[in-house]
């Protein structure tokens, strides 16, 4: 199959931000996740947990609350005191409304989905009406003494519970007055703590209020009388989050010790109608604080400081015991943060607020499989490019020739020209960007680095001609009338004639760059596109979807290739379909047109289209070299998928030249090492 020199890169010092909030939407089966840097991501749980949308973060915008309202509208509120609505089509922020109550700590959507309630630093609870295109302030509830950290509506919408410091208030929505004030015990393991923070409340239809607090307690209150009914001490540290199932028969809480507890409403004795809440299962999938939990009908979802999003299916609720019943731990973004200049062997790393440019080292030695070769030149950190302003970088790209770097934030687009003189490098910003090039969702250079393709958040695709140190706007493909769907993925053919663009939901459009018109649209497929690329010479578009299907579509013929049809007829190997991370990059071998290179976070694969496809009985992954005596057997069982799992977690892999690969790994241990230390738990004795 071939021998490669692999540049194994582990200096991409990427640390994902901790998860602050998760919000699950039952209608669309989508999960919104906000991180501590203000990033908001939307996962489609029906599409193999694919991260299909994201909104870049902002330094001053720490989201403290996230919720879905009627019509699948997503709102967030944060410490900057604003409520924001996200445009899930155009992938930008629709508007931000200042609530004038200081930092917002909590937010809850009414059961009808038409009203929004926020709890503020100054102790106020404010009610907003959700109108079709905005939100409108309606009124204040009785002002409380201290900040409102948690809110929950009664399912009938008549009452709300608000968790504050040392007490929980129950409000009547109609009058806006507090009808009960339930004082939470400050005692923690017999020691009186300074304050008891009510991190979360949940209001059940029978009038029970469940609270979780910083003293490690889960408490049940009767909201009618304002009395404590039951108390569970579950942790030595804070219990920070709670989420109740829609049927109100189970709920989940997350603690600062990284434990998630499942509570269930079970009959006191078999065949009795009297039921009680029982702590049933503890899960320890996190090392750090579980800041937020969600309860989907079939799974417990948790996230926290350790940056993992954990989806733990409830086995009793899962009907088919297939691969969906397995635990999911999502750590890395489902998009590329790395681009590479093949000609100059450069890697561009994208961080939240800066870019790093590295030059790969070299070696003159050769070796056999598995050898580590002595370096004649080590990798160099060439450039550290910091963004101005508080906004996170959305996307970035380095041109194949290595002389251009482009990146974009929400409000500005930056293009730099690089000059190399021996070991010195000089950087020059191309000024006077046209106003339409403000916010790019994806940037791509043509193979010869003469053209720049930009997908803007307005749905338009811009083509820019680069020559010398200047640029010229050539054309803009406007979106089909009526749609504003943003394009998130771009692919250009090596001859520069074809440009493929894919949106968030479905549909890949192929444009003819020479004639500047839409060439064709690839038949729609149910699952979102995770990666695509156009093969040189043949101009076949290879598309990977989140359900792990890979299609090959001939752009000149406007139809799927024979190979793709064969694959679809026979089906992929079951182990291939069971992988749980999406393919994030596809590339091709310049000399071997039959090869497709692709990778996800845990494997890298070369598909050799000339070989037979594996069926479910053949071994998909075989890391061992063939031995002489079994060569015949080996040749007979050889199949198209050549898989390597050596490099993981793999964030990027590409072919630099015929015999050289570059692999960028990000070991989890390195991420953990950069997180704050977790709460220490004693293992032995008392």
């Amino acid at each position, binding site marked *: *199959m*071939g*021998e*490669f*020199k*692999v*540049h*194994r*890169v*582990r*200096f991409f010092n990427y640390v994902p931000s901790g998860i602050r909030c998760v919000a699950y939407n039952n209608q669309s089966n989508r999960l919104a996740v906000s991180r501590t840097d203000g990033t908001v991501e939307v996962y489609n749980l029906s599409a193999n947990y694919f991260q299909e949308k994201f909104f870049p973060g902002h330094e001053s915008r720490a989201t403290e609350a996230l919720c879905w309202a009627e019509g699948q509208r997503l709102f967030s509120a944060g410490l900057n005191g604003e409520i924001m609505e996200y445009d899930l089509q155009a992938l930008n922020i629709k508007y931000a409304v200042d609530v004038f109550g200081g930092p917002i700590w909590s937010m809850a959507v009414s059961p009808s989905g038409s009203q929004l309630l926020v709890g503020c630093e100054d102790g106020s609870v404010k009610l907003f009406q959700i109108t079709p295109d905005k939100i409108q302030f309606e009124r204040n509830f009785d002002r409380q003494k201290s900040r409102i950290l948690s809110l929950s509506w009664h399912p009938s919408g008549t009452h709300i519970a608000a968790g504050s410091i040392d007490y929980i208030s129950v409000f009547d929505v109609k009058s806006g007055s507090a009808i009960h004030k339930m004082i939470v015990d400050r005692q923690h393991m017999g020691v009186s703590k300074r304050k008891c923070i009510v991190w979360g409340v949940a209001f059940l239809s029978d009038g029970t209020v469940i609270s979780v607090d910083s003293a490690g307690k889960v408490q049940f209150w009767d909201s009618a009388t304002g009395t404590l009914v039951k108390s569970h001490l579950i942790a030595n540290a804070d219990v920070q989050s709670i989420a109740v199932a829609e049927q109100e028969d189970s709920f989940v809480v997350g603690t600062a010790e990284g434990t998630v507890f499942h509570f269930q409403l079970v009959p006191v004795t*078999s065949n009795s109608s009297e039921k009680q809440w029982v702590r049933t299962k503890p899960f320890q999938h996190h090392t750090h604080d579980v800041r937020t939990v969600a309860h989907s009908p079939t799974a417990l979802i948790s996230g926290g400081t350790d940056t993992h999003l954990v989806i733990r299916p409830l086995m009793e609720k899962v009907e088919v015991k297939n691969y969906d019943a397995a635990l999911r731990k999502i750590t890395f973004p489902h998009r590329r943060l790395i681009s590479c200049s093949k000609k100059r062997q450069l890697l561009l790393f994208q961080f939240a607020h800066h870019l790093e440019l590295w030059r*790969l*080292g*070299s*070696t003159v030695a*050769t*070796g*056999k*499989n*598995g*050898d*580590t*070769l002595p*370096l004649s030149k*080590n*990798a160099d950190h060439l450039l550290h490019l910091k963004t101005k302003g508080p906004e996170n970088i959305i996307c970035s790209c380095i041109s194949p020739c290595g002389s251009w770097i482009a990146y974009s934030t929400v409000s500005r687009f930056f293009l730099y020209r690089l000059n190399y003189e021996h070991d010195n490098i000089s950087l020059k910003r191309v000024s006077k960007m046209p106003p339409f090039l403000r916010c790019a969702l994806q940037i791509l250079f043509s193979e010869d680095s003469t053209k720049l393709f930009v997908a803007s958040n307005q749905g338009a695709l811009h083509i820019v001609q680069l020559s010398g140190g200047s640029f010229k706007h050539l054309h803009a493909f406007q979106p089909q009338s009526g749609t504003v769907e943003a394009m998130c993925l771009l692919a250009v053919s090596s001859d520069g004639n074809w440009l493929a663009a894919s949106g968030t939901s479905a549909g890949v459009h192929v444009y003819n760059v020479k004639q500047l018109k839409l060439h064709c649209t690839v038949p729609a497929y149910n699952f979102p596109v995770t990666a695509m690329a156009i093969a040189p010479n043949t101009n076949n578009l290879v598309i990977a979807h989140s359900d792990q299907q890979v299609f090959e579509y001939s752009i000149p013929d406007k139809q799927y290739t024979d190979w793709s049809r064969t694959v679809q007829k026979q089906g992929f190997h079951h182990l291939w379909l069971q992988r749980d991370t999406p393919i994030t990059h596809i590339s091709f071998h310049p000399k071997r047109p039959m090869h497709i290179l692709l990778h996800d976070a845990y494997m890298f694969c*070369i598909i050799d289209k000339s070989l037979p496809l594996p069926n479910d009985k053949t071994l998909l992954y*075989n890391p*061992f*070299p*063939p031995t002489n005596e079994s060569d015949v057997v080996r040749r007979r069982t050889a199949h198209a998928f*050549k898989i*390597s799992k*050596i490099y993981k977690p793999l964030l990027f892999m590409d072919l630099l030249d015929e015999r050289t*690969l570059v692999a960028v790994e990000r*070991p989890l*241990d*390195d991420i953990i090492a950069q997180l704050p230390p977790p709460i220490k738990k*004693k*293992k*032995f*004795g*008392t």
Partner: protein
Amino acid sequence: MVSDQKPLGSWSVKQGQIITCPAVCNFQTREYIVVHDNKVLRIWNNEDVNLDKVFKATLSAEVYRILSVQGTEPLVLFKEGAVRGLEALLADPQQKIETVISDEEVIKWTKFFIVFRHPVLIFITEKHGNYFAYVQMFNSRILTKYTLLLGQDENSVIESFTASVDRKFISLMSLSSDGCIYETLIPIRPTDPEKNQTLVRSLLLKAVVSGNTRNGVALTALDQDHIAVLGSPQAASKECLSVWNIKFQTLQTSKELPQGTSGQLWYYGENLFMLHGKSLTVIPYKCEVSSLAGALGKLKHGQDPGTHVMPRFVNWETPQGCGLGFQNSEQSRRIEDSEKHIEVEVRKFLALKQTPDFHTVIGDTVTGLLERCKAEPSFYPRNCLVQLIQTHVLSYSLCPDLMEIALIKKDVQLLQLCLQQFPDIPESVTCACLKIFLSIGDDSLQETDVSMESVFDYSNSVHDEKMEEQTEILQNGFSPEEDKCSNCDQELNKKPQDETKESTSCPVVPKRAALLNAILHSAYSETFLLPHLKDIPAQHITLFLKYLYFLYLKCSENATMTLPGINPPTLNQIMDWICLLLDANFTVVVMMPEAKRLLINLYKLVKSQISVYSELNKIEVSFRELQKLNQEKNNRGLYSIEVLELF
């Protein structure tokens, strides 16, 4: 006596032919069927005179019996265990007959029943002294095989069988060569027909016939409560027919048969048939409804028969204010009988197990029994309760009275069982059990039959030299000399040798140890247990502490810190109980001079535990550092160029 009556008809086979199977009547066609020479079937009716000329069919296999009951076609049971309906067999007499039972297995007895309008055939086979029961269901065509376990008396030979059917099981009674009648319950609906199942028999009646009569022994069930036995009651006496009430273990009636019998006995339509000498004797016998009064001979004739239909317990109401010895013995006899009876009923119920309301029924039964126990202090169906507890469906909250009564009766065996089986015993009850376990005398313990599973025989596994060596190893990782507070160690080290010896022998008898282990295994909450522990007398606390300390020393003898044996107490349980006892009673124990040495030992023990844990924490930290170093080593290259070959 009908011995002088003439037979209605008589037929005989030709000379040289031998009848190998008793003739039966096919009730559906009013024909008779007989087999001669094992394979030749003859069928005739009243009009036929010469047996040689009647219908003849030669079969391909040897017949054991033809079985016929009213309402269904006769069945043919072959010697190899296969069964055929007569019609199906006559349609093709030469059909191949399969072999069901193994080589050398011989059919000993068979019976054919109609249960719920479905025919059920049972036959017993014997092979090398082992007995097997086969139950063939004709509606489902399921053949279930059971192995009959003979119990303690493995050498006894079964002489005769009889069986009666109830709604859900076949009660198979067997008369053994030891002269006792045993009962085996066979469920009609098999739990798992694929599996080879075993059945245990239980003693029903003792010594009904003399143990050494070899032949002429037979028994037959008359109804649910009565059986008729043919045989000689004592070795020397003449053979006689006796009817026994099995419920009350009483002899109902008996008749001498001076001319001897051939060991054949039938019961059809309230008549007993047997061979007496050379004549067939018919004795009409009607079973009375079984009642205690009848069994004791006090049944008033002409009583309203309706009273017998009442629940059976009603028959044994306790007479108030009985003072006479005779009455006492009669009463205890009654209670014993009723306990025995309840036990049999419970066993029958448990044999079935499959009812959907099993839990409820068990709960109700226990509650009923306990209510009666409370009303009648002398009533205590112990075996029954044991059986019910062993169903694993009871819990303390379901029958709180059970342990209360056992505590009153000081029934340590039952208490042990409860502690092992119930998940929800309140701490006060656990503590009450502990009190009894500590205070009960050694001699009364000897009589009890407690489960010794958790106790390992400590006595012979201990050697003084070894023990001493082990205490050294116990202090692994920190030497006593380095310790800051070493004066008490020195004091201890100065103690004479015999102290070590003392601590190595178990301070309690094994049976008490088993009981205490049950306490150690039970679940508790510290807060609720502590106040109750304060009520235990100080010398008992000391004894328990000594035992716990002994267990701790045993634990520390091996590297895994476990005790030998099945399900022994764990180190954590032992340590927790030591802490609990000391917390509750320290002020009392510290005043006792005899406890001083123990306390010093315990102090040393706690200190060593603390040291072990601190060492473990140190090791943990060192390991973490090592892990870090290891990671750094792995991460040494943030960048490398490697060679990869894909195959």
